[in-house]
């Protein structure tokens, strides 16, 4: 057992437990907060994998912006006080069964069909410096320039869409 493996196991326990609590908690506010915790655990995984830029983007965009938006909407709608709907009798066990089957099948295929001996080694010190950021930026603004620009248009369209959707029609009562 080396330290990296121990860190990995502890963090994966955190990630899985927070995901399950997110899934099962009745109150959506707590679900959102546990999801934030899950995102932060995943961000630490990115650091372990030598991707500091993605880790920071994860924290600012996911844990920061997206989840704050979620919390705002939950509180705006008062969704934490909505009464529980009746759950179909078979829905819950069926959902667990399907999810477990999916996970088992994927893991089975992974071990039988894709036998590999790739190992994630501790990232070089060079990966956690400005050098790797520079590499990512060069890739992003040379080979992936067009997708990058398309992403900006996508964000613009989403922004306009959100504004149009939540705008009141003229003459509509408040």
């Amino acid at each position, binding site marked *: 057992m080396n330290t*990296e493996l121990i860190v990995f196991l502890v963090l994966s326990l955190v*990630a899985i437990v927070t995901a399950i609590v*997110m899934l099962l908690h009745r109150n959506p506010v707590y679900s959102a907060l546990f999801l934030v915790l*899950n995102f932060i655990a995943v961000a630490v995984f990115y650091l372990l994998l030598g991707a500091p830029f993605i880790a920071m983007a994860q924290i600012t965009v996911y844990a920061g912006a997206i989840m704050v938006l979620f919390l705002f909407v939950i509180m705006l709608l008062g969704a934490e006080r909505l009464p529980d709907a009746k759950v179909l009798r078979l829905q819950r066990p069926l*959902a667990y069964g*399907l999810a477990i089957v999916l996970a088992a099948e994927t893991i089975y295929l*992974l071990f039988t069909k894709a036998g590999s001996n790739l190992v994630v080694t501790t990232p070089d010190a060079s990966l956690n410096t400005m050098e790797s950021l520079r590499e990512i930026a060069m890739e992003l603004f040379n080979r992936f320039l067009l997708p990058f620009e398309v992403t900006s248009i996508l964000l613009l369209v989403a922004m306009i869409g959100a504004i149009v959707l939540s705008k009141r029609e003229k003459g509509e009562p408040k």
Partner: protein
Amino acid sequence: MVPIEYYIILSVILFSIGVAGVVFRRNPLVIFMSIELMLNAANLAFVAFSSVLKSFEGQIFVFFVIAVAAAEVAVGLALIVEIFKSKRTIDVDQLNSMKE
């Protein structure tokens, strides 16, 4: 030294939890959160492979996925707020017609 399989197994488990959430939760906000969880699981696999293969392309894909997720959440939450305004409920069972 963590085998790549561990990362992929973790990613599969997180993805499956997200699938279960989409199937059995009734609150569309929690369903949305489960979708975010699934996107995150896929991102984790991307970054793990990018780290093993020593290439940055996986990380750049993750960057795009994060941008798309942000756009999706903005529009999706606006839709949910709008549905709540017109129907006074957001239970997915009640949302069975496109008209009011």
